[in-house]
């Protein structure tokens, strides 16, 4: 094992702690648990154990509620160090018992202590940590940790028990003759098997004469689950004396434990087995988490593509609506007709003088010039159209996401009001439309050059020419229906004729194309901001780099072991 292993483990741990699994996909729950366990295991066990490979062995006594874990620990120590009782579950705070010589290793004072985040407490009254009991009754070289149960309704016990078992050099699993076939403990044994921790099993409370049958059946169950060779100790049911198990059972366990204590080589072998097992198990476990991160990446990708698709469609729909003449209704046409008229515009040409007078009067009365009103109507219609289309897209994305894997989780973390366009959207749309109209007028000025003189001759200002151009843009692709279409089409034809007369046909086509392109660009810009409200929600979620970082980190660990 190279000196680089601890550093590689630390990197793996950090990558693991950051592994993004926020979406509730089918693989997420298991992966989150595995992620948290690996982080814990590196902190609690692997780094401390690698820092001191010769440290005393930590035997974690775990198992079901009511199986007599505390009684077993007390019997081994030879005095009551942890309180058994009839009320389930009993052991609340875990208790670590060690020999005085081993105290500095377990009291949490060293540089890389085992279970570093559990504060050590010593007094009876103190709670909320790992209670440390120093007692010469425990053989040197082995510490016993009385863990909370794995199966009571106190769910907090289960997590702590799993954490403690993750830090074990040796798992001493206590069950009873009534319990050994319970489903829950076997799930924990499967975990223990995955990381190959050295195991021993105590079957407590065995009825008279049932020891052989129970032991044989338990060994068979162990073998069926790949745990053959696990030592099984049957402890007969007999009235407890001073809260200790009977002498026969105690002798058996004590002999085994002191044997380990006296035999440094055997102890080292146990430590080695569990350490190698834990390191070996990292690869498949990290892979599982990385696969789950991949699932997250895929889900995020699907969500992002769905949002993109809906807003691309929205831009397309808006474009279609712009060209279909739907904007050329009501006031726009009214005002426009009033100005240039669907009647013979040449008439107007002949009444130039009268027209100029009319306008002067309008100015004196404070009336808005008609082209201003036409522009206002166009602006209102455009803003309405854009807001409506954006609302539609937002609702579509929300509904699609709700039905997609992980979509509800993303939406749950978002502010309200995603079902419609943002509150600032109409104002932004107005700004864009106004800017577009200004651009159209600018285009007219730039392109017109000397021809504006002719236009002026027609009593048409830049504004009027601009409105005419806007009408052409909206009528460009046709697709009009009904009576409105006739009016709009007629109006557009008038506009087209008017503009062609002033600029020439090719120039009008160019102008309309440029004006249209500018408008579409603005719509895209506007909708991109709305789309970002959705895609922005995905930015904190998993990326392919996260999964790659995990796989790289575990490869480094494998490298570090060589």
């Amino acid at each position: 094992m190279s000196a680089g292993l601890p550093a590689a483990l630390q990197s793996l741990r950090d990558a693991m702690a950051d592994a993004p699994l926020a979406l509730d996909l089918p693989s997420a729950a298991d992966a989150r648990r595995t992620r948290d366990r690996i982080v814990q295991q590196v902190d609690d066990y692997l780094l401390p154990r690698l820092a001191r490979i010769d440290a005393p062995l930590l035997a974690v006594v775990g198992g079901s509620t009511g199986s007599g874990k505390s009684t077993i620990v007390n019997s081994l120590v030879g005095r009551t160090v942890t309180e058994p009782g009839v009320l389930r579950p009993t052991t609340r705070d875990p208790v670590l018992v060690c020999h005085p010589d081993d105290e500095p290793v377990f009291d949490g004072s060293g540089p890389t202590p085992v279970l570093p985040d559990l504060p050590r407490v010593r007094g009876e009254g103190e709670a909320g940590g790992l209670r440390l009991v120093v007692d010469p009754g425990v053989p040197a070289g082995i510490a016993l940790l009385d863990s909370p149960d794995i199966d009571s309704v106190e769910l907090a016990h289960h997590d702590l028990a799993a954490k403690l078992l993750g830090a074990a050099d040796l798992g001493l699993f206590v069950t009873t003759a009534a319990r050994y076939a319970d489903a829950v403990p076997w799930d924990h044994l499967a975990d223990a098997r995955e990381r190959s921790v050295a195991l021993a099993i105590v079957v407590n409370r065995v009825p008279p004469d049932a020891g052989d049958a129970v032991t044989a059946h338990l060994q068979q169950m162990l073998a069926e689950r790949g745990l053959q060779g696990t030592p099984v100790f049957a402890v007969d049911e007999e009235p407890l004396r001073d809260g200790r198990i009977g002498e026969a059972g105690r002798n058996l366990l004590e002999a085994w434990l002191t044997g380990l204590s006296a035999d440094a080589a055997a102890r080292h072998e146990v430590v080695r087995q569990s350490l190698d097992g834990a390191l070996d198990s990292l690869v498949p476990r990290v892979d599982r988490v990385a696969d789950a991160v991949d699932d997250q990446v895929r889900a995020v990708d699907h969500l992002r593509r769905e949002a993109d698709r809906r807003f691309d469609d929205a831009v397309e729909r808006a474009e279609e609506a712009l060209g279909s003449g739907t904007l050329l209704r009501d006031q726009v046409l009214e005002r426009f007709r009033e100005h240039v008229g669907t009647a013979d515009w040449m008439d107007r040409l002949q009444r130039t003088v009268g027209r100029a007078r009319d306008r002067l009067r309008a100015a004196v009365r404070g009336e808005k010039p008609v082209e201003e009103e036409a522009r206002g109507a166009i602006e209102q219609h455009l803003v309405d159209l854009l807001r409506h289309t954006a609302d539609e897209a937002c609702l579509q994305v929300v509904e699609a996401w709700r039905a997609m894997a992980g979509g509800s989780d993303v939406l749950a973390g978002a502010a309200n009001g995603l079902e419609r366009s943002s509150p600032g959207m109409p104002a932004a749309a107005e700004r864009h439309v106004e800017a577009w109209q200004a651009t159209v007028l600018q285009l007219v000025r730039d392109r017109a050059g000397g021809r504006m003189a002719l236009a002026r001759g027609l009593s048409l200002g830049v504004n009027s020419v601009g409105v005419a151009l806007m009408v052409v843009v909206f009528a460009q692709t046709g697709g009009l229906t009904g009576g409105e279409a006739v009016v709009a089409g007629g109006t557009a034809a008038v506009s087209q004729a008017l503009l062609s007369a002033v600029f020439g046909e090719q120039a009008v086509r160019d102008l309309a194309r440029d004006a249209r392109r500018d408008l579409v660009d603005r719509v895209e810009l506007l909708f991109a901001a709305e789309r970002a409200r959705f895609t922005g929600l995905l930015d904190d979620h998993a990326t392919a780099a996260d999964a790659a970082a995990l796989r790289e980190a575990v490869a480094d660990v494998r490298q570090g072991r060589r």
Partner: protein
Amino acid sequence: MTVVGPETLTRRVDALASAVELLRPHLPADELAPADAVVHRARGRMRHGSRYTVVALAGQTGSGKSSLVNALAGREVAAVGVTRPTTSRARAVVFGDGHDAGPLLDWLGVPERDLVPTDDALDGLVLLDLPDVDSVATDHHLEAHRLIDRVDRLVFVTDPQKYADEALHVGELQRLAGHEEVLEVVLSQVDRLTDEQQAACLKDLRRRLSDDGLAGTRPHAVSSKTGEGLPEMRDRLAEVIRGRHAMLDRVEADVTAAAGALDPGGRPASSRLSHRTPGGRPSTAWPTPSVWTGSWRSWSPSTAATPGWRPAGRHCGG
């Protein structure tokens, strides 16, 4: 409790069936399945009448269900083993002459049967020894749950080692909230405890039952070894049999629970509602409230005024 007659109950089962049909276009099949099953079971069970009262002993492996069955039967009918889990198939013990219990047992799907001739107060009792609900043998759980759904009355057996297991409370008892009237919980193997320990244990168990939503259920101590609590248990069983309405009680509890689960304004936020309407907006999948109340009233006009008709979750006493 108030005795509900079979006619009233039949009408309520029919009403539930029509509610299910009314809701079918609006709800996914899996959300209607529980109510469908209740209708099916209720009709099946009621066909067999109340000549027999079916009581199941359910519980964890090693809690001593089989020993209790033997103690109640007065002889060895169920195998009691030292290796776990023991009982893999349900076993029926029929108290009385039992010549006409066959069709009911066929409906229950319990082929293993024993007859215990008796002319005492337990005559008419069909006692089922169920497989465990918590061992590694998951097929046991399935068989146990199948029968837990069908029997008239349930006796949940736990013991001093296992009474606080998550598998018992979360896995089993919490699902039975609202069924206090058809449920009894016994703490077996109390011979392992001193009197003070027993009292403390029962108190702790009662507190946990209350946490499970079974505040009305008071656990009873029993030991098949010393016989402690057995006469009382026999008395309680005899009482149930004498009333001859355990079957109706069970059907009523099921119908009430199923109706409550379907009523969007009834039980507190069932998960399907919050699932279907994220963000709390009313889901379009539901019928509008006026349609709903209309159909609700239309199918239960006669039962609305019946004393036995109570919304789920308000039962008390046992």
